């Protein structure tokens, strides 16, 4: 199989795994630190967290902005690297001929 077909197939599987739950299921898909607190609360009724985050994103919007920024920075570098390697690879191939 050509590598582009193969990689395309792999990406399709990831795509399905990621989006199928959204379509197939009615749920909130909460990341739910609140629920985690509940579960701990049910195991140890008296537990109170003894430390608060030093800084919290003031709103959901700011938080999703920061998460998006994290993803953008990361993928930016990943794809820069892939492009750089590809360029270097084809340049060295051209030099050989």
């Amino acid at each position: 199989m050509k590598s582009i077909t193969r990689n395309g197939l792999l990406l399709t599987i990831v795509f399905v795994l990621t989006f199928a739950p959204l379509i197939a299921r009615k749920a909130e898909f909460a990341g739910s630190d609140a629920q985690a607190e509940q579960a701990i609360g049910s195991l140890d009724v008296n537990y109170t967290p003894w430390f608060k985050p030093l800084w919290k994103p003031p709103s959901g919007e700011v938080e999703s902005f920061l998460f998006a920024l994290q993803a953008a920075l990361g993928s930016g570098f990943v794809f820069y690297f892939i492009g750089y390697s590809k360029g270097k690879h084809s340049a060295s191939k051209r030099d050989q001929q």
Partner: protein
Amino acid sequence: MLSGKLKKIGLLTAYVMAIYIFIPNNAYAMHIMEGFLPFNWAAFWWIAMIPFVIAGVRSIKKTVTLHPSLKMLLGMAGAFAFVLSALKIPSVTGSSSHPTGVGLGTILFGPTAMTVLGMIVLIFQALLLAHGGITTLGANTFSMGIVGPFVSYGIYKGCKKLGAPLWLSVFLSATLGDLMTYITTSFQLGLAFPAASGGVMASTLKFMGIFAFTQLPLAISEGILTVLVINILSAYSQKELGFLGVFTGKELPIKKQGVKV
């Protein structure tokens, strides 16, 4: 080849259906939140983490001094973990979690290097996103930067020894490493909050039912993405992968790279 693919897709479908039937709504899965480990446990995991961080810094220094050209690749491994742990992905259990992305770097640079990179990602998330925490940094680094990578590394080396193809070794290594990270988190919570009846094991299982099932499809996605990146790297960065011993002679596609850069 194609029938193998179909079989795999069939298996996946069966798995997804099984999850829908057996798993109730409203599970959750994430790193341990700030302040949610009792002080003693938080301190314990911090101390447990430190030797691995030191070993990691040494290992990174050694790699970079030996092969300065690998710096970019190391950055890429870190960036990969950075992206993947920013993506909270919906899972079949009806809640969301995120992959860890440390499998790739483990395969390339070894497990302790990823302890350091994983810790950096966790510090970023703890300080800027209030996700995870500084008090729980030790515990979260232990699961994501130590247990996960060491499991990945063991499986990767084991698979290669058994002669498994590169893609399979990479897939299993990244997938199971991701899964083990969250199983470790369950243990950490179970140890800190033993159930009144059944103790540590009972509450670990409770947390595990929540964490591990949500994580399964994400772990599979992470495995596949890691295979993808390794595919791309083996096409364009053979020399670097050669330095790192990712290829053992026979897998190396025979294309001479005459030019020294």
